[in-house]
């Protein structure tokens, strides 16, 4: 296999990793106002992703860096072309990232409330816009003969782009709810599972619509199989959630997201950024790639270090494998300084039942 093809696959894997991991922590962020009924439940939600969200986010930084290194032309055209959506994603990731760290620094519901808004908006915007960006990548965008994007923000907000955005949005909410059901205990666990099924049904409709479009637009046999398995595993995941099998349910949305992304890359191959402009340049794995020498160096480094990264990230999830319930949230400082009525210090009977 050509090294540029190997790197196309590796970048696909990085995006798969990014979406399956940060997908659920975007979902948890957006579910903050929906699933949590009081301050302690909000803290339960945030603490399910507390130790891992930062590591999850590094997947996108690595995907960006790998694209820069392996396909400089793709990186240059994509990042300068999708300028405003990427800027909005950056701003969202900034406020979201600091919000996790800042929200627990002061007692009181007002302070926490502001950072909750930052988490919610900061999770919503990228969950929507990554879908818009990927849908347009597959659909094709206007690129001129100098490999520069010639559209605007509005070019990207076409029906297909929006459908893609709504798909990732609802899939990530479902995925997040599945994660909460898997990682919490008590009443919130059951509410999360119920919500996952309801949002999941909507996500399934949007996902099927989008994937059918993608298949008809540029699909091949490989992408068809991947899309089909993705759809089946979403339905299987929802069924498992109905049956109360949270591990299997989470695995379902996990596989769905991974395979849907894989299918989109397979459908795109060998293009990386098709042009819709007459006489424009379609970027491919060949004309956008770095030199053979650079790809060789990168391949050796990736082969050595990727297994280590996977191992220690997996280990973190194992260290923090325990479910979190409201009674696990330390309350001393809140009770001292905060407003008792606001923070819901009443013990939650839910955890006894489960």
């Amino acid at each position: 296999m050509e090294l540029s093809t190997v790197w196309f696959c590796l970048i696909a894997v990085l995006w798969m990793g990014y979406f399956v991991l940060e997908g659920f922590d975007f979902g948890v962020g957006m579910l903050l106002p929906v699933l949590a009924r009081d301050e302690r439940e909000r803290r339960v939600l945030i603490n399910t992703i507390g130790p891992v969200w930062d590591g999850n986010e590094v997947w996108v930084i690595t995907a960006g860096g790998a694209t820069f290194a392996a396909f400089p032309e793709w990186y240059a055209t994509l990042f300068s072309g999708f300028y405003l959506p990427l800027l909005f994603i950056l701003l969202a990731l900034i406020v979201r990232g600091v919000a996790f760290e800042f929200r627990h620094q002061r007692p009181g519901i007002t302070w926490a409330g502001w950072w909750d808004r930052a988490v919610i908006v900061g999770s919503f915007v990228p969950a929507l816009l990554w879908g818009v960006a990927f849908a347009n990548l597959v659909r094709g965008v206007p690129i001129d003969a100098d490999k520069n994007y010639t559209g605007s923000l509005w070019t990207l907000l076409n029906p297909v782009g929006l459908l893609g955005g709504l798909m990732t949005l609802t899939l990530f909410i479902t995925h997040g709810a599945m994660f909460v059901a898997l990682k919490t205990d008590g009443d919130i666990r059951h509410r999360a599972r119920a919500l996952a099924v309801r949002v999941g049904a909507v996500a399934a409709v949007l996902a099927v619509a989008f994937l059918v479009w993608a298949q008809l637009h540029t699909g091949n046999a490989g992408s068809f199989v991947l899309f089909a398995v993705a759809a089946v595993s979403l339905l299987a995941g929802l069924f498992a959630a109905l049956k109360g099998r949270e591990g299997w349910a989470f695995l379902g949305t996990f596989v769905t997201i991974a395979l849907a992304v894989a299918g989109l890359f397979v459908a795109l191959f060998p293009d990386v950024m098709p042009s819709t402009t007459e006489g424009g340049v379609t970027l491919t794995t060949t004309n956008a790639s770095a030199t053979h020498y650079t790809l060789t160096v990168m391949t050796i480094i990736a082969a050595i270090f990727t297994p280590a990264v996977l191992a220690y990230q997996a280990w973190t999830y194992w260290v923090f494998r325990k479910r979190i319930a409201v009674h696990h949230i330390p309350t001393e400082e809140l009770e001292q300084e905060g407003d008792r009525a606001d923070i819901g210090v009443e013990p939650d009977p839910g955890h006894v039942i489960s």
Partner: protein
Amino acid sequence: MHDILDIARWQFGIVTIYHFFFVPLTIGLSLIIAMMETIWLVTKTQEWLRLTKFFAKLFLINIAMGVVTGIVQEFQFGMNWSDYSRFVGDIFGAPLAVEALLAFFLESTFIGLWIFGWDKLPRWMHVGCLWIVHLGTLFSSWFILAANSWMQHPVGYSYNKATGRAELNDFWAVMFNKVQLGAFPHVIAAAYMTGAAFVIGVSAWLYVRKQADRGLYRQGMRLGAWVLALSGIVVVISGDVQGKIMTDVQPMKMAAAEALWTTSDTHAPFSLFTIGTRDGQHKKWALEVPGLLSFLATGHFDQKVQGIDDLRAEYKQEYGSDPGAEYYAPGDYTPIIPVTYWSFRWMMGLGAVGAVIAFLLLWLTRKGRAPTGRWFSWAAILSPIFVLLANSVGWLFTEMGRQPWVVFGLMTTRNAVSPGVSTTDAWISIIALCLIYAVLAVVELWLLVLFIKKGADAFVEPPDPRWRDHDEDPDRPLTFAY
């Protein structure tokens, strides 16, 4: 500013300097806090754990800002500088990708383990996580400085006319660029200085004000002062080495650092301070040290140092046309002299004062004594501010001194910007980022002041989870939670 070039340059300068407030603090504090926790584990002295936890709180507020402002850095190469990315991606992209794979995963994963792991990991493993985070910051610095050093002194590449880009042919040459070998110890030691100065400033402030905990803050102060003093020495030595490498590979930058227009005779003087015209062309009065510029540039007090005018003529000969096209007007090849002249002096001056404070502090606190006047805490709190600003102006000098090149000798900055990005979009970007950064700076400083004023919490014995039996009480609240 109606030109995308100006907007993109201002944005790069602003967000990079802002990002680099948090970077040296993170590198330096991760080292010092890991030292504190290790000393606690070894000596079992309660004070060291209290210091660990106290500085951890301040450290985590910083690290959050460093992480989120770092993503902007990686994205903006593609967003604002797409022609640069196309031209250098084959070389410059690799260290960035490797930095993410080797360093960012390490840092982000193990900082999560360290923050939340008090009741999950055995103690030695817990402190090990922080040492790994620190190692991650060093890896990260190595790769990003290799990338930057390549821009100062391109090596291990060839220019491909057919593709119109620079292409990598020797990865190790890029990783062990001689500019890099000078820059890495300099930047890392400066980061240690920054972390140490922060610990000194905060500890001294509390030392004067919290009488009950004098012993505690004295320990913090002394540790910080030792780290600051030692790393200060490394900064001076590595900076001296760097100056000579710079004279070799970027003589214009050295000439610009002194505003030396005409090539000197022997014993070129170094001016500590000059009053002159605004363009730096003519001096009216200067305080000069004879022979010092010759020494900084060459290692000998009696050597010649090339001046700007000669170098400009030389550069015109050599780079009459660079791979790309005809970019410059006559008179270019010269950075903005007042900026390079003063940033060079401020870097050294502020850094030196910051380091001198450390030596003074070690002297003042020798054998159990220590001053308790308010003047003392005010003097100490200046130390982190000086050192932090020395970092900023140091980078300002390095990057402004390379202009008009973005990659020395290969590509000018003018040619590096994204041709397809509209000025409106670029304006939206710079304004949005500045606004959000300004708000976060206020929040961050306010939180820091709040926690510093509060001081260290009382000692609480942390849980001691052995490897297997830490699930004894499944209902126990988490030791740390967001």
